[in-house]
């Protein structure tokens, strides 16, 4: 495949010069302008900062490729944080996973069986779950189980735990989306659900599974983040719903469905992470950072090809 073709139609990966170029440009730019950017310590920081977003964004990508969107995933992150300090430490992880499963099932069934628009469905569950998290844990605090803290604190071969979390999530999602039946079929469903069904794909099951996996991404991010700060916070995930959408849009995932890739999600997440990191280093107010994320989401989505797949 020639470079020309790659730019015109990069398969169904959505990878183009823009998606891959933004993080590279940012990296070079920050290397020259931001103080203390090019240090090992800062790289580790960036890695830790984007790990949670990456976990959420990978799940968001699966939903987006199937033609949906999950705004509730940030609230799942918050709920996870609230749950793990409120139950018996031995049950923390299973309880959080169970909650994630329930949320995913409800979102998925709402979108498929009851044909609620994904935006409305997950906006509703986002609001509901945020309330639930605050009910369970009205004030930040609590004791995160020690084994969870150990899982995010270790270093191995000189690399921090966050790195391994990322690698595992990336490899698992890549195998799932590129090498399994499930993965191929979500692309089919996202492109045209009717035709996917005509070819023997169970569209309903496929979609529900996508939402469940996305919720699991939120749960993992919640576990990781709570363990890292060694404390729970019921509003920890507030910005993750939109940030994950921004990250995948930057990474060339078509929000209309059918196009997207794991490398793209990495690129988008890194780009967003670098922006945050750079603003921190330069000393920009966090409020401006929030405003910038909004603008970035708008421009990332606007830059996407409006025409559907193949154009």
């Amino acid at each position: 495949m020639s470079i020309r073709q790659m730019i015109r139609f990069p398969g169904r990966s959505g990878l183009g010069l823009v998606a891959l170029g933004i993080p590279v440009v940012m990296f070079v730019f920050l290397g020259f302008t931001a103080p203390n950017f090019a240090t090992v310590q800062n790289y580790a920081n960036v890695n830790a900062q984007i790990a949670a977003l990456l976990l959420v964004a990978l799940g968001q990508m699966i939903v987006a490729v199937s033609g949906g969107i999950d705004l509730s995933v940030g609230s799942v992150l918050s709920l996870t944080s609230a749950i793990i300090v409120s139950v018996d430490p031995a049950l923390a992880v299973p309880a959080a996973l169970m909650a994630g499963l329930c949320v995913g099932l409800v979102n998925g069934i709402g979108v498929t069986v009851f044909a609620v628009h994904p935006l409305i469905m997950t906006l509703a569950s986002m609001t509901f779950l945020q309330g639930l998290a605050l009910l369970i844990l009205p004030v930040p605090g609590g004791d995160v189980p020690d084994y969870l803290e150990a899982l995010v604190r270790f270093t191995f071969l000189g690399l921090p735990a966050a790195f391994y979390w990322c690698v595992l999530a990336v490899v698992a999602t890549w195998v799932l989306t590129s090498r399994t039946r499930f993965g191929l079929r979500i692309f089919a469903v996202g492109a045209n659900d009717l035709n996917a069904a005509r070819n023997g794909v169970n569209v309903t099951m496929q979609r529900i599974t996508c939402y469940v996996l996305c919720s699991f991404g939120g749960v993992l991010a919640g576990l990781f983040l709570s363990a890292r700060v060694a404390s729970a916070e019921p509003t920890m995930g507030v910005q993750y719903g939109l940030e994950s959408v921004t990250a995948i849009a930057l990474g060339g995932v078509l929000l209309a469905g059918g196009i997207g890739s794991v490398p793209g999600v990495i690129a988008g997440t890194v780009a967003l992470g670098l922006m945050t990191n750079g603003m921190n280093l330069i000393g920009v107010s966090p409020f401006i950072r929030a405003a910038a994320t909004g603008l970035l989401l708008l421009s990332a989505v606007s830059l996407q090809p409006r025409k559907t797949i193949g154009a």
Partner: protein
Amino acid sequence: MSKDTEQAVSGPEKASPGRTLVEFAGISKRFGSTAALTEVSLRGGHGSVHAVTGENGAGKSTLMNLLAGVHRPDGGTLRLRGDAVTLGSPQDARRHGISTIFQELTLLPNLTVAENMFLGREPLRFGLIDRRAMRRAAQAALDRLDSRISPDTYCADLSVGEQQMVEIAKGIAAEAEIFILDEPTAALNAPEVEKLARLIAQLRAQGKLIFYISHRLDEIFRFCDVVSVLKDGKHVATHPTQELDHERLVALMVGREIGTLYPERRPQPTKRQPRLVVEALAPSAFGCAVSFRLSVGEILGLAGLEGQGQRAIIRALAGIEPPSAGTVSKAGRKSGDVEHLPASIVATARAGVGFIPEDRKIEGLYLPLSIRQNVALGMLRDQSIWQRARISGNAIEQLLAKMRVVSAGSGQAVGALSGGNQQKVMIGRWLASGVDVLLIEEPTRGVDVGAKAEIYGLLREFADAGGAVLITSSELTEVLGLCDRILAVRGGALVAEFTGTEATEEQVMHAALTGGIEQEAVA
């Protein structure tokens, strides 16, 4: 076998060459209160191309959907290779060796050819997709069709004809013995049709049974060995195509002779009153400027090979693709009342010129809206958007009844109607709006024979009542049968003019091909 041979003399069973592969025995199917199929019995054998034809709504699609596993019959038995089977789903049908190529192709644009061919039954190795095996099997299937399409191409990059080829290869890869082709040429251009013809011949040579659903008579005679005709859900007859000709087949389909397909033309007055005067109109896609008049009471046809500029001319006139030069003026009902038409679709519609596009589903109708709403749009033509809409429900109902639109009621979504009824709704919208000129691209594309006759009748009635109609059509018989005057188009220029009643197919074709040696003065 001897019993079969006996029946062969007169019975419909005779027609299938080769061993029987599929047998419909007394199949019935109802949808709600309507009987879609009533005790249909027919069979198809190995190595034959079996046309299933009839008007829209005759039940041919329903019959094939039963075989494709989309619907289940309410009565009767479906036998495959002699055994009674129940096909519960499309997958079930596929497992029984039945491959359906729907009119709307089912390939996914973001999947490769190989992925598309194996979607739903991807080969696995250690729980993961075995891409190499999938690719190899896809290549083998494509090779058997002598196709040069690469299994790694994304289907978004394929033409419609190539996609159809992939659909057929998909059936080959699934070891299908029975192929159902539903109106396969609807979206193909001429070279692609040639290719399809070769593909069908290949499948037949490999001993496959092909059910060919179509109401295009030429194709039935060209491609098919046997033709079964359905009418109103009943099996009318099955004959080898050699024993039939166009007229007899049409007579079987509609129960009337082809002569009555076109309404009678009244002799045109020698001094014609012009309605549209087109002067030096140059469609931007073609360099040539064309000048002609469209007169009151006439149906004028633009004929020629496809892509020669008929479409560009009519679209420039309608204001959809504004021309690079030229003027169009329209004479009102009162003499001397002449209006210059600016090149914009809004202006032409305001001035009482209705345009009916070739692809009514995309450019014309609002498919999810009701028939009533689609027609009512026409009534809003010259109303200000701030006014309360004045829509007369009675007028719409009368119009629909007059046009004989067959539907479950005027509240039904237009998308659920047959092609012929959709076209009537399209025409109805402009009639409701009171236009006096209609510009129509391919007036009967995707319309069955019965509805065709009714649409021709409507257009003639419109012209007789003082309207004027300009059509483009790739069906020469239609132009010859319907139009009062015919303009042959070649390379964007008008090369010849004919009188509808006198022109012959040869003359018009000759002009369209060579530029018209026997050219008469172009008006």
